[in-house]
């Protein structure tokens, strides 16, 4: 039981770590530029859990004040992550725009092929 509750207590963190590592793996390992950006998105998204999880109080409620409740989860991480989401989508939009331009300039979005073409040019 002790072990089980230990796993339960840290389950969020294990999954967070797994998501983050997978995202990072995609970014580093794959040559396709769109897929890299998807991986980057996973990598950034997993950070949300890292921030939000410690703010949760079991039995608490969302931080919208109401006389009916007394325990609220911590609002500060929510604010930070709202900012992080915005930064993430801004980066994604810019990255995708670059990919479109790269595709126009090189005719491909695979990094390896681009390196080949630059070598030849």
């Amino acid at each position, binding site marked *: 039981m002790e072990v089980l509750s230990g796993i*339960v207590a840290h389950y969020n963190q294990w999954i967070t770590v797994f998501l983050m590592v997978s995202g990072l793996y995609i970014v580093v390992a794959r040559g396709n530029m769109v897929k890299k950006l998807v991986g980057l998105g996973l990598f950034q998204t997993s950070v*949300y859990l890292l921030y939000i*999880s410690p703010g949760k109080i*079991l039995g608490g409620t969302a931080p919208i004040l*109401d006389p009916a409740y007394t325990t609220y989860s911590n609002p500060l991480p929510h604010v*930070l992550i709202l900012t992080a989401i915005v930064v993430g989508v801004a980066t994604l*939009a810019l990255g995708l725009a670059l990919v479109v331009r790269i595709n126009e300039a*090189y*005719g*491909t979005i695979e990094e390896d092929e681009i390196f080949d073409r630059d070598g030849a040019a």
Partner: protein
Amino acid sequence: MVLLTLMAIVTIAVVRVRNLFAVVILSGIYSFLMASVLIVLDAVDVAMTEASVGAGIATVLMLGTLYLTKTTESVPTHTPLLPLFVAAVVGGLLLYGTIGLPPFGSADTPVHANVAPRYLDKSIEETGVPNVVTSVLASYRGFDTLGETTVIFTAGIGVLLLIGGRRRKSKAEAEAEAEASGEEA
């Protein structure tokens, strides 16, 4: 907990699948799952944003990009040893760090003891706004939000600079385009 497990499964699928359309849709699903998890964690504002941004706008933009480029990924030619090593080091470090963190869901952690209680106690008195996320976002940490709006502004103008104009505008671009269409033929 079920949601988290589902997210892990979707992530594995994203790594494995090579059809980029499928990858984009999977990442949309991932965002919805993330939004559900966030609701469970009481972060309703964040969940709403993640659902509309991650599953909405991001998916639309990625599909738009795929429409302009291509839809399958080629088989990776490198051995994945270096990436695996990098990912493993980061993962190990993360686990090392997170194991020392306070347990999930308890109320007597530093996160709840410092700074945040003031927002919960004083928000109505000082700003008249019951949604504490809004009052922190727009007032207590209003400058962060100005920065965030600036980030959006930067990205917006940046995208327009890169792909906003009609393509025939500059000579260099026209040449590049001719080259690209030559390669496609």
